[in-house]
């Protein structure tokens, strides 16, 4: 119960941060990727602002065996940069540039993103459901 409560709190904070930062507005995301046009640097500040508390959190985590609720602190997967990372991230980035939405903002904005936002989310879920068979079909490493 406590675990679900804190998960909901983390999700809510994440959503608030996405709204406050402007990352649920696709024009700001596409503006960041548009380095040959009217470039919008906001996303760099969002990343910087987010990496700061997380750097401290990883340092605290490194001195602990377990999280507060008893789960082991997730370790590094110890894997190198494989084809899944390269091909997957290129595909993801391309889709990100087309619509200006990535998974977090797509969920955060679903209540006010209109028909386009809902269609994006459904297509994204369909892609996620299809991925295990795509992995198998092309012999890509299963690192999930």
């Amino acid at each position, binding site marked *: 119960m406590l*675990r*679900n409560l804190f998960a*909901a709190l983390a*999700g*809510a*904070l*994440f*959503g*608030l*941060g*996405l709204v406050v*930062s*402007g990352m649920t507005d*696709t024009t700001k995301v*596409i503006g960041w*990727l548009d380095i*040959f046009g009217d470039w919008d*640097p*906001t996303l760099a*500040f*969002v*990343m910087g*602002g*987010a*990496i700061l508390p*997380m750097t401290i*959190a990883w340092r605290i985590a490194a001195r602990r065996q*377990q*999280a*507060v*609720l008893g789960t082991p602190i997730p370790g*590094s997967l110890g894997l190198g940069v494989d084809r*899944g*990372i390269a*091909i*997957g*991230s*290129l*595909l*993801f*980035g391309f*889709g*990100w540039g*087309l*619509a200006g*939405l990535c998974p977090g903002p*797509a*969920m*955060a904005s679903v*209540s*006010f993103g209109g*028909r386009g936002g809902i*269609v*994006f989310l459904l*297509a*994204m879920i*369909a*892609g*996620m459901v299809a991925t295990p068979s795509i992995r198998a079909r092309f012999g890509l490493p299963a*690192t999930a």
Partner: protein
Amino acid sequence: MQADWLWGLAGGFIIGTAAALYLLVNGRVMGASGILGGLVDGSGRTTAAERLAFIAGLVALPAVAAPLLARDETHVTPSLALVVIAGLLVGIGTRLANGCTSGHGVCGISRLSRRGLAATLFYLLGGGIAVLVLRHVLGAI
């Protein structure tokens, strides 16, 4: 807006705080694509309740906060074909890569993960190419 960068920094700090909370309290890496992906493809069945709770919070607070902050306009392209293609690519790509902007970007870079850094470079490259081609070559977005 002149203060866009300041809103970005403040919002980013809230996002990082959320990720820190999820790591230190729940012992989980806050990756949006992993949390949703594990739920819909069945691989995260044993942690389904925690995933659902996270997503419920992620949807609910913006539903209230975005109108209050006058940030409830997403400007998603009216082309549904483009939206479907983009959604499929984001879904498949993030699951093949095991992460997206939050997991590889925020959580990976902050622990100096080589995979996180590499993924971030590749998705920035993919996104830059998409906008270059769609906006400046084809004029479609």
